[in-house]
């Protein structure tokens, strides 16, 4: 450990920060997309629309049985094939993450919606709101408030999962660090640095999620 070279980290800081930006951007877009699609799936399942509910359930169980890397490979292969032209790996990876994470988010959101008492739905219908309106104005706002800590925890998982873009070589934080590591032959420094940075963000995030959870249950 004596020859630990801090300068390789400092010298390459701009490159590493660019990578970190990609990681954060991907996480943010995937969280938003995942929650939107996940809410949609959860609502379909809860509303018990014939056939559609079954399709949504099948979607969730199907994606949850697959490794994320396989889904990334699938989309990396499919997206250009469908569009008929090559696109950057960022978009195919983003679609993979949204499709994959929506399955997990939908389970969280379904549990959140189920935790709102059904009297609320009856009350909404009684004052003349339609079913979609009841969901939109009464059930979802309450459900989401109680879900924030769990959604945040899932976002941290997703943040860690984005490191898997490594398999298609998208220049996120890990891949940028790996490029430097191999170029300067500084694997020890770079990988330890990457681990520390991930740890700081994830640990801080999980402490905050726990704080929110306590505030909710208080």
């Amino acid at each position, binding site marked *: 450990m004596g020859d630990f070279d801090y300068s390789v980290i400092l010298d390459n800081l701009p490159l590493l920060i660019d990578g970190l930006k990609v990681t954060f951007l991907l996480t943010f877009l995937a969280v938003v997309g995942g929650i939107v699609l996940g809410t949609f799936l959860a609502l379909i399942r809860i509303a018990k629309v014939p056939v559609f509910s079954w399709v949504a359930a099948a979607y969730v169980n199907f994606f949850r049985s*697959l490794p994320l890397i*396989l889904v990334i490979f699938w989309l990396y292969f499919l997206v250009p094939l*469908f569009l008929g032209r090559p696109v950057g790996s960022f978009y195919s990876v983003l679609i993979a993450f949204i499709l994959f994470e929506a399955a997990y988010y939908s389970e969280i959101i379904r549990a959140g919606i189920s935790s709102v008492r059904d009297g609320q739905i009856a009350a909404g219908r009684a004052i003349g709101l339609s079913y979609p309106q009841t969901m939109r104005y009464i059930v979802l706002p309450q459900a989401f408030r109680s879900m924030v800590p769990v959604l945040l925890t899932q976002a941290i998982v997703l943040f860690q999962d984005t490191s*898997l873009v*490594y398999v298609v070589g998208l220049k996120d934080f890990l891949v940028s660090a790996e490029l430097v590591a191999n170029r300067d032959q500084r*694997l020890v420094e770079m*990988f330890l640095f990457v681990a520390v940075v*991930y740890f700081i963000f994830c640990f801080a995030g*999980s402490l905050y999620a726990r704080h929110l959870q306590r505030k909710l249950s208080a």
Partner: protein
Amino acid sequence: MNYNWDWGILFREPYFDWLVEGLMWTVSLSLCAWVIAFALGSVLGIMRSCSSRPLQLIATVYVELFRNVPLLVQLFLWYFVFPELLPDDAGRWVKREMPMPALTTAIIAIGLYTASRVCEQVRSGIAAVGIGQRNAGKAIGMNEWQVYRYILLPNAFRIIIPPLTSEFLTIFKNSSLALTIGVVELTAMTRQIEEYTFQGFEAFTAATVIYSVVTFTVMLLMRVVERRIRIPGMIATS
């Protein structure tokens, strides 16, 4: 969309053998990693719930460390960094002379990572058995070890069969990460088939079907196991 379908490719040599071999590596990697995760995770879960402060602290630090660094980064730490930190001879042994370095490293890395998750499941299982049972054990004169051995653990492990099943399936899916350090397991094999034949659809479909079938089979099997060893009179809620 221009694509030449050829499903027969999956049953032709050598690709069929590749799939079988890939599945074999995936399964053996998952099972070996699960042994580590289950054993260590159980010990950690007991430590986190026991009455000794130092043991609680050690287990808590372990869980936070392993849960807050991406598994892929941990895999690289074990594969590229760990041997460098050892004395020269030991480092060389880990890197090259050890039997199947990449596979062994992947097993250990995935096992240690999942142990932190199993620990949390075991801890919540023990908590679900309840403080009343713990006190009852103490009241009839059992020491702490006996309370765990005869009361808390036999109940806790039955309660947490469903979450432990999903932890095992998480290992099964996470075993695909081993391809990044060169273990040619199922996902890597299908990628290889795609690169050799350009039949990506067929190759990835094969992997997708295999993963799903194994997952659903394990789930059905564990549901039967769960029903057979359920504790009578318990709904198994916390």
